[in-house]
């Protein structure tokens, strides 16, 4: 599955879409595929603070538990309640309807481009 070039990525397999001072964050198709069927997501509370590369949530599949790493420092302004109710959306549309949280930030750390993330995950 190709990684959209308009997004930025982390080595822990999160994607980040920046609009103004708010970042929308999800996990990549590669991560969703590796996890298997997602059956439960535990997302941070609205208003909580995220810290760059600290765990802020969990994504559970039938077989394993994946951690959601915050790609940046900020404050959680929205969580995707549709995904909480229908966790399989993370598998079916990881880069779209399967987004997880929105975080307001003041500065962006350096993230990976789609090409760099492709290289990390061994995709051409």
């Amino acid at each position: 599955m190709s990684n959209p070039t308009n997004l930025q990525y982390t080595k822990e397999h999160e994607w980040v879409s920046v609009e103004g001072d708010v970042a929308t964050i999800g996990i990549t198709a590669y991560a969703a595929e590796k996890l298997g069927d997602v059956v439960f997501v535990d997302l941070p509370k609205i208003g909580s603070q995220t810290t760059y590369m600290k765990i802020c949530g969990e994504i559970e599949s039938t077989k394993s538990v994946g951690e959601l790493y915050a790609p940046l420092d900020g404050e959680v302004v929205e969580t995707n309640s549709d995904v909480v109710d229908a966790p399989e959306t993370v598998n079916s549309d990881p880069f779209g309807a399967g987004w997880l949280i929105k975080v307001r930030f003041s500065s962006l750390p350096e993230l990976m481009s789609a090409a760099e993330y492709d290289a990390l995950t061994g995709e051409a």
Partner: protein
Amino acid sequence: MPQTPLHAEHARLGASFTDFGGWDMPVRYTSDLAEHEAVRTKAGLFDISHMAEIFVSGPQAASFLDYALVIQSSAIAIGKAKYALICNAQGGIIDDLIVYRLADDEFLVIANAGNRHEVVAALKERAIFQGFVGVEDRSDDFALLAVQGPEATEKLQTIVDVDLSTLPYYSIDKGVIDGVAGYLCRTGYTGEDGFEVLVPAENSVQIFNALINAGIIPCGLAARDTLRLEAGMPLYGHELNLKINPYQAGLGRVVKLDRDADFVGKSALQSLSTKEANPVLVGLTGEGKRAARAEYKIFNGETEIGEITSGALSPTLGYPVAMAYVERNFSAIGSKVEVDIRGNRLEMTVVKLPFYKRSK
């Protein structure tokens, strides 16, 4: 890492792979949940060729197995099968097995992939004093395919020559499968009706594809694990190991103590059978969607009282189920315990196994 003869077929079907018992095995083709559901509602196909096929033969094969295993193999009728354990002298479980009687003087023993060499070595060592017995590890000659689910009989019937409806549960018969001679066994590890098909390794690709063409859905080991967990079936390395005895694992009924002849582990097992086993294997269920998984610790207040051995959010039931060893005092049906799920406590209740039983 060893592969089954079907590895390239799995890759062609888009499977993801995982290390299971030291083998590179398909964990899923498309979706764990879809594959799990296929077995519960239709028919699923598993490549379990990693499992070991050990042939025990000779005039003293039956009395030898009576000595080597905890069951009385000499009492198995020809064409029948029995669940068995092979224990060490201390009563610890070396492996769990299925023993099929092929003829008066020939048995087929199916062992777990990860224990293949231990089981073969133990059988050969135990055969030294038992007269004319051949113990032959023929695992590499065969592929083993499991066809499981309510539609297993109907779908498999389209490519075999024997009338499957005449093959009772825990039986084995010779048959021709897609033109190839093999064995059909009415056994499984999913809690559903079904068959295990033993065929020559060199014909396995043809037969695997014939089964898929018959409408049987290929399923990976992830689904197999949640299926057997719901069915309350133990998995060696999780519920069973060398430090666990059959009475702890709820498998005391498998051990045939009331016979005159000696067998390996007999005196230890006799003594263990008179004591209260502790800790013991229990089934646990909880509420919500968060699974208690293998190795998570179990508490009563601040006191650790056990550990999860297998656990998942049950795909069929929709709530967390687990098997665990807990202190005997907390093992009664209805007991409440707390599981530490990565820092959060989940209350779980001891229930009778299995979690899932098919409607007949």
